[in-house]
């Protein structure tokens, strides 16, 4: 049997209407938000139940047909694009039930529910779901887990990994694996949850997860600091954390970002070498005291500050950060969004080196990001029709990754590896972890997916 036969068996067992093979349907799944990689699968199966997932993995494994799990396809690395035409894209978006269990402090979400839908469901009960990738209105729970996504609130709340209690995963061959329990304390054996989180669909298909929820903050104060020197902003960020403050959001924007936002979106944001935006949350009685302390730290580092708890003004203080992606993508048809993490103590060095790189290549590269957890998004802008700029952009992309490795950081903070960062990833592993690490993960992969059908070509596989 081959691909067509496998497909016809799947079609028979899950129902014809769930299997798409018309070119005009499958081409719609040929890209993700990297926009760099393009390949249409041979078929798309729209899973609406666990059983659909099980059938696909059973037949595909038997017939050696590659399977690419897919949420909303907002991966920025090509992770959700197949590398061979005889692949099945397994679309999880029809599976999106959500159940909030306030008594036990969790929300159960199926893989296809969006992160924002989960958050909204929690808010109806006075709780919220803290991880908030900027793509949360689109990105699915399955995709966010498979990418270990982070977000703006990462400075305080971390990434997806920190919020998972349990998961259900299907393995090649169709075996079901229930990992963890929806209770806050639970232990036996090694923690397999972490094995699947961040695995980019290369080990199995996540069908549902039980996620921790958190009470809505009583009050939030937003502080904006503007700085005449980038280093001052970097110092302010590490000082805020050193002094024991853990703002819910701690974002950084450089001058070029503010310029582009003003230019493209017509805003009138004060031009400065750098801007830091912090959200401090806490009890009503204490939150302003905490906010004043954070303001004080910013001032000590040479910043000018404004703070507010008025929703409209808060929105205004956040305007430039919020508009960054829109402004950059409007101004430049070609954009490479980097995603490095450095130790907080190296933030200033990283910013300086990025500035040097920008000068050396003479390219526009606004830098913004979740600086509170050392995660920066230098965004290389170029004209894709200009060969020279394209070459420069690719070179810069690699050099930024290497910079992160040199500083003891990581080449990806949250967007993952996919196809875009495979080479850099191997460099990082060799430099920091040694070949032994690779051997172990490859053995695990062989054990779980002996026929190599799960999202081939991604990560280290």
């Amino acid at each position: 049997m081959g691909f067509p036969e496998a497909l016809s068996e799947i079609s028979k067992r899950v129902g014809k209407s769930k299997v798409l093979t018309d070119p005009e349907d499958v081409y719609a799944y040929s890209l993700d938000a990297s926009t760099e990689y393009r390949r249409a699968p041979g078929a798309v199966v729209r899973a609406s139940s666990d059983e659909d997932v099980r059938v696909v993995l059973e037949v595909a494994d038997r017939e050696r047909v590659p399977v690419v799990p897919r949420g909303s396809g907002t991966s920025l690395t090509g992770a959700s694009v197949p590398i061979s035409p005889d692949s099945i894209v397994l679309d999880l978006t029809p599976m999106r039930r959500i159940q909030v269990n306030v008594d036990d402090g969790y929300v159960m979400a199926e893989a296809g529910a969006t992160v924002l839908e989960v958050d909204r469901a929690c808010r109806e009960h006075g709780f919220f779901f803290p991880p908030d990738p900027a793509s949360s209105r689109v990105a699915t729970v399955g995709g966010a887990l498979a990418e270990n996504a982070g977000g703006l609130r990462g400075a305080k709340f971390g990434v997806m990994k920190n919020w998972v209690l349990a998961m259900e995963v299907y393995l090649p061959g169709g075996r079901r694996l229930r990992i963890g329990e929806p209770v806050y304390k639970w232990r036996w054996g090694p923690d397999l949850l972490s094995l699947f989180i961040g695995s980019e669909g290369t080990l199995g298909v996540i069908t549902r997860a039980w996620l921790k929820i958190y009470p809505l903050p009583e009050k939030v104060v937003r502080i904006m600091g503007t700085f005449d020197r980038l280093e001052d902003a970097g110092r302010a960020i590490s000082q805020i954390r050193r002094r024991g403050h853990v703002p819910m959001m701690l974002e950084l924007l450089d001058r070029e970002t503010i310029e582009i936002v003003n230019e493209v979106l017509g805003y009138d944001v004060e031009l400065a070498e750098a801007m830091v935006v912090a959200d401090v949350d806490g009890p009503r009685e204490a939150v302003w005291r905490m906010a004043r302390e954070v303001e004080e730290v910013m001032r000590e580092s040479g910043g000018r500050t404004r703070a507010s708890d008025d929703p409209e003004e808060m929105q205004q203080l956040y305007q430039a950060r919020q508009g960054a992606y829109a402004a950059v993508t409007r101004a430049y048809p070609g954009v490479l969004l980097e995603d490095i993490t450095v130790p907080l103590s190296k933030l200033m060095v990283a910013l300086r080196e990025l500035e040097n790189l920008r000068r050396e290549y003479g390219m526009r590269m606004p830098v913004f990001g979740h600086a509170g957890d050392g995660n920066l998004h230098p965004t290389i802008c170029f004209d894709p029709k200009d060969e020279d700029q394209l070459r420069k952009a690719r070179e810069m992309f690699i050099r930024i990754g290497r910079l992160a490795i040199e500083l003891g950081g990581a080449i990806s903070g949250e967007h993952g590896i996919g196809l875009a960062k495979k080479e850099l990833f191997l460099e990082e592993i060799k430099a920091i972890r040694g070949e032994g690490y690779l051997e172990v993960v490859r053995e695990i992969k062989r054990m779980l997916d002996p026929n190599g059908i799960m999202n081939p070509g991604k990560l280290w596989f």
Partner: protein
Amino acid sequence: MRGTAVPEIVRFAAENTTQTGDILGLGTEQRVRWAKGLLPRGPVNGTVFYSGEMYPVMGYAEGAFRMLKRLEGFMDVNSLARVGPLMRKLGIYRVGARALWGGLNEKYQRALRDAVYVLRKLGVEMGYLFEDEPPSGVALHTYGLLREFKEHAEWVSRRLEELGVRRIITLDPIVATAFRLYYPEFVKDWRVEALHFVEIVAREMARQGVRLRLSRRVRVTYHDPCYLARTLGVVDEVRFILGRIEGVELVEPPRHGVNTGCSGDGGLELTQPPLARKVSYERIEELSGTGAERVLTSCPACIMMLRTGFDSMNLGLGVDDLASLVAEAMRNGVEREVETDAGEERREKLFFKRYRVLPRSPEPKSLELDDLAEMLLWETDKCKKCGFCNVECPTYRALDRLESRSARGRMTLINSLVRGDPVRPRAVLDRLYSCVLCGQCSQSCPVGLHVQELIVYGRAYAIYSGRAGVGPGA
């Protein structure tokens, strides 16, 4: 249009629009009878009331739409489109339609008469062109027959000039959009001003300090038509008008104003009625969830979708054109405030905010295939696949998040078609025709792509490339 990728029903509607002047081809007599004795013939001070090609026959469309639902599985809309001309040949088309759905149509024609009544009460001077009224041809634009639209629009422009028309007042926001936004793009020196009914009514009510009173109390909700609110940016006028009628309590649905939700029309009701119905359900639930006793709106196609939707879900909610409620109140008399301090506020209200939430339209150099291709490739290559446009896309939502019938998916498919990927123009066109042109996508695209209009241009490319035999499977 024959031998092309264009489905039968679109051909039927397009040919009727340009030849007979209404989408169903029922003929001039049907189209103008509502106005007999109401309005003087020809423009008055350059102004005409313009009924357009939908309003006067919308009841027949509603009848056909209801019938198709009952015939689902036996007959689709394209076979129905084949029956029309056949019946016309047999001479039973108009008579048959009148016998079946003449009653339904009365309601739509009454809205036109109510609108005229309101405008005249406010002292607006205008005439009507009767059988001389040239159809706007907006359906040609909707369905991507852009070369035909351009040719038609140029003729309409000349015709209106000959007739001495300088200003158009209409109850149909799709027609108003065509004259206000599309004509200037397609016709050189287009100078006719086009206003929607609510714009002029709000302005006059404010200027004259008009207050009205219903002889009953009624809780209403208002469905903002996409074309009026999102595309033309007309939102505050409606609230102003309703706020001036004693006895009316307005409850807004969660999505309103420029963030309104689609009720399933935008051309989809004609090309793919079952999907149109599916799309309408979400909005129907939302509107009925407001607890209102009646739903008001300002678009013939929205009225049809909502009426049939409420009926099929047995919700017993009535739908009226806003014009009818205003007319009902006016029949109780028109009270005009004497000049007081309120005069200041009133003058301010003369100028209502025009919301701008949509990005700039794409501008191909011409409608030649190469120029269309160049523009479409340039624009769709800019798409970052972030999927923000999908979140509120009504067809994506109605179809369980199916990518190929979503905003982002349509951008990908247009790109694939133009690049020469092995996709077929006719099948791509089918995906593009499943879009309701609501503009939610254009409103939410961070890159600033006018997705909705790119879809219209994509339709044109699929049609003309299919006709030229370009691309596989043409």
